[in-house]
């Protein structure tokens, strides 16, 4: 009885500590949301942190004054395209690497994930300038694909390896070609792996800053660049900046709420499997 009580107390204490730590970690987000409902005066007035009349001015101005709808569309198009083409190139590659144990190619993909993006930024800028592709979706999608595709392959190799080999064999006996078996048998049962890979690929592209900084322009400006530009005004519009930050974070938060399991699998998978 006494031991049970001790266990219960321990569980309660552990819960309290975990929730306390969690609170500290989400504090910056709470701060961001709070500030997004304040006007400049209310933000600069530090005597009243929590008591203020909330208003939506910042959200309105972000869309009317700064044309954020365009940036949302740009970010979404680039993320969707680079995820789609990343899958198109990555899935067959991952399948072949897994099936034929091509560890050399696996290593090339690992290196593509490790290499600092900045080491090919200058040539990209030169080449895309020559091709007059700066400020186009093409350049942005191609550059973001160097993030999405290696990630997709990296997630999918262990997934394909874990599938039983007989699956493809039996499809082949039924008269399928390898490609037919891959499309009709392998891909449909690879749903969870593909979802994991696509969600994170999409988020990585959505968040990408460095590549867009060089390759985006007025026509194709993505959200991270648009948000960063807030700093260049002489007086920083904190409320607008925070509202913009809420807008860029919201889709990621929603994806996280519904797809938590997949995201954790994708982010931690490689490490635990070792």
């Amino acid at each position, binding site marked *: 009885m006494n031991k049970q009580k001790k266990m219960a107390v321990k569980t309660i204490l552990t819960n309290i500590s975990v929730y306390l730590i*969690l609170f500290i970690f989400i504090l*910056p987000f709470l701060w961001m949301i709070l500030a997004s409902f304040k006007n400049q005066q209310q933000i600069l007035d*530090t005597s009243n942190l929590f008591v203020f009349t909330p208003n939506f001015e910042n959200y309105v101005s972000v869309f009317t004054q700064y044309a954020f709808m365009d940036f949302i569309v740009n970010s979404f198009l680039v993320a969707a395209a680079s995820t789609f083409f990343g899958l198109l190139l990555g899935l067959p*590659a991952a399948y072949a690497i897994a099936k034929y144990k091509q560890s050399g190619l696996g290593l090339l993909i690992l290196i593509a994930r490790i290499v600092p993006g900045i080491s090919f930024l200058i040539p990209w800028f030169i080449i895309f300038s020559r091709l007059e592709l700066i400020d186009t979706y093409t350049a942005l999608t191609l550059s973001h694909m160097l993030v999405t*595709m290696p990630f997709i392959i990296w997630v999918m190799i262990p997934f394909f390896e874990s599938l039983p080999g007989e699956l493809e064999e039996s499809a082949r006996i039924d008269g399928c070609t390898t490609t037919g078996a891959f499309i009709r048998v392998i891909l449909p049962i690879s749903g969870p792996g593909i979802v994991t890979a696509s969600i994170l690929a999409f988020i990585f592209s959505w968040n990408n*800053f460095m590549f867009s900084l060089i390759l985006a322009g007025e026509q194709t400006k993505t959200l991270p660049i648009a948000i960063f530009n807030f700093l260049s005004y002489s007086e920083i519009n904190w409320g607008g900046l925070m509202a913009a930050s809420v807008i860029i*974070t919201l889709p990621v938060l929603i994806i996280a*709420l519904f797809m938590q399991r997949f995201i954790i699998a994708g982010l931690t998978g*490689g490490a*635990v499997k070792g």
Partner: protein
Amino acid sequence: MSYWIDKHIKWIYPLPAVLFVGLMMVFPIGYTFWLSFHEWSMSNVTPPLWVALENYKALFQDELFRESLWITFYFTVVAVAIQMVLGILLALLMNAQIIGKGLVKTLFLLPMIATPVAVGLVWVLIYEPNVGVANIFLQALGLPVQEWLASPDLVLPSLILIDVWEWTPLIALIVLAGLVTLPKDPYEAAIVDGASRWQVFWNITLPLLKPTIYSAVLLRLIDALKTFDIIYATTNGGPGTSSQTLNIYGYVLGFQYFQIGKASALLMVFFAIVLSLSILVIVLRKKAGASL
């Protein structure tokens, strides 16, 4: 035709991906390597001029380069060390009956999946000396206010704090996933032997987690070395050059001063550092895995 494809599928399937990586990564890195032996300001009129090893010589005599090398290592090592310790502790805490564990995990995901530039700018507001909540907090405790990101002495610790905030949950989730897969037998034996909790952690849990921890360290070391978004958005290497990492210095040299040759030389050195560190950790991890 389809028979031919079937026969060579081993090469046809990966070919587009390999070509893509070749065109978008291998060729540009070769280009950067080539540029690192030239002097050029990205001008259309004056083509790159061959200067052999001059850029590398200039680089190693450059005080700022040595400073950025030190800043990069300081930032990386301290940040990763802190988040490893905190992450493992958090994982141990979370490896219990937690109410609403799914939601807790989801919320812990936020710092690492939210857009770095956006959270970086939220931290700029938090650290703002006059209106930021960091100083309001210090004042409430009766402590002297700080300049945070604007202070040459405090800028690196402030950036490290952001990185720790961003990535500690990842370590916790990785270690937590590793904890779940651990075998139960050694623990039962330890309880029978009357081992203390600390002994169990130190002699059983930690050694069993070694491969997981090595992987997490590898992942974080490489990413921390390459940290760009947070630093560029919050300080752009400043104040002065106090937080100018290799990544930022390379960017500044290339895209603000247009010293393409010197920037390329720096980027090749950076590339070599990241790659050799990765190989080193992979080899170490294989050794650790083999000895288990």
